[in-house]
């Protein structure tokens, strides 16, 4: 049922806890009560220092990792239900696509899983390849791709079935400025169609430019959520140690500092 209700929540994290028991002695607390929501149609960016739990949060959302405690809601369903992925596209960090296959093979797989017939998919595949600017490398196996090319290929796979929700884990990592520009444009265009975007990133400048709301994660939970407009309104210290910082950078550093106390 389609509702044009902007305040509709599509993603919910409700007091989510996760501890990795990888080592018998060391237990890594990845999430310690993560709690926030993402509204339909917005672009929500999550930033945080390394080890804050950003990737874990996204992996739990996709059902790759099970939360110890708390509720997660993805598009009205539990993440452990594969049907929740029907209207969701996911771009993992350092995406590894199958080395020996080409991007066309991968897109054909997407087509098949999403129930497209061979005729429908041919045109769609071509469109997507053009969109991510990989037309010249369509028949080359992935192992010969550069990092930027792999990233774009994976993005194409995530976008194949025009998901309502797009989840991206460090989408701009490892891309050169041209590649970054391309990805940002794609994401922007995609959001304009009314789709929801949730992503996490290290690159604060991109986050500042693209997001409707920004969440700062620290030590496994969301320390604060802020809107870019608010950042501009409030005057945060623009210099730290004599270096000029962007508003988000300053806010980020301040928040992280407060959290570690």
């Amino acid at each position: 049922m389609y509702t044009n209700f902007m305040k509709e929540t599509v993603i919910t994290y409700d007091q989510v806890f996760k501890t990795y028991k990888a080592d018998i002695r060391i237990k890594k607390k990845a999430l310690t009560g993560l709690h926030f929501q993402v509204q339909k149609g917005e672009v929500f960016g999550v930033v945080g220092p390394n080890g804050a739990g950003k990737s874990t949060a996204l992996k739990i959302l996709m059902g790759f990792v099970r939360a110890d405690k708390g509720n997660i809601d993805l598009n009205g369903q539990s993440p452990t239900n594969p049907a929740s992925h029907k209207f969701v596209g996911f771009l993992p960090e350092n995406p590894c696509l199958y080395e020996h296959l080409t991007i066309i093979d991968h897109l054909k797989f997407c087509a098949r899983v999403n129930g497209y017939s061979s005729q429908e998919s041919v045109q769609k595949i071509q469109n997507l390849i053009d969109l991510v600017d990989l037309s010249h490398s369509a028949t080359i196996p992935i192992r010969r791709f550069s990092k930027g090319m792999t990233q774009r290929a994976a993005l194409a796979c995530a976008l194949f079935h025009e998901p309502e929700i797009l989840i991206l884990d460090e989408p701009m990592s490892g891309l050169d400025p041209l590649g970054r520009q391309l990805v940002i444009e794609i994401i922007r265009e995609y959001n304009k169609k009314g789709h929801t975007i949730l992503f996490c990133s290290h690159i604060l400048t991109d986050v500042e430019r693209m997001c409707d709301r920004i969440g700062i994660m620290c030590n496994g939970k969301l320390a604060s959520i802020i809107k870019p407009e608010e950042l501009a309104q409030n005057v945060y210290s623009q210099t730290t140690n004599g270096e000029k910082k962007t508003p988000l950078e300053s806010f980020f550093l301040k928040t992280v500092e407060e959290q570690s106390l």
Partner: protein
Amino acid sequence: MNNIFAVISITFKEGLRQRILYGVIISALFVMFFAVLFSGWFMRDISKIILDFCLSAVSVGGLLIPFFLAVNLLSKDIERKTIYAILAKPISRTQYILGKFGGLIALAAVVMSILSASSLVSVWIGKLLYGARFFTDFSLLAFTQAVLMSWLSVAVLIALVVVWCCVTTSAFLATLLTLFTYIIGQTIDDVVRFLSVDTVGVEISATVEKTVQVVKYIFPNLAVFDLKLQAAHNVILPFGEFTTIGMYGVCYCIVALSLAVLIFQKRDLA
């Protein structure tokens, strides 16, 4: 079901493009050529010798899938996170496991079919070179039975490889466990037989006997699928016996895969 076929297809394609496969086929073809040559030195039971070599090559070719390819396509899938490409789609973990298994046995089937076809060519060449009189008893049915059972044996092993890859993250450990499984699978038959017979001067403790009685239902008896010797001597297995072995193999695969699915559901794919 469509999802399972999609995973089978992508696994199959990825496996097929691995260069190891071509190395396997070339080596096996070499073996078969050698078999034809070698058998000429005996000038006696030529049919048997060619079939011995060729069926062994078929087995070895099939075994390369669980030992080398399977671990690559399973453990590495999780290690390198390529599994996300599949699980990010509306595909359940069960479908993933079944699809992987399907892809792997399909790969084994392709490899073994090519090798079987070459075997038949070897037999034909043997006939031309040495005379048809050595091959009068050659039974295509016996040969097919042996190849099919060899494939089933590989399938059982692959099912267990899937279990091991769900249990451990390390590709090395999974390969090691596969090796142990294979060795145990091939020797358990002899061990059970040895212990079930009262022979001169051999004393077996009651604990060992009881353990083996239980263990024989748990470990797969891979030796029952070995029909190479029968095929080499042109002995055809009656339908009932063939079905018995077949049922054993199929049911074992189902149980092993169920176990794999169960384990995999709980796994964190961080």
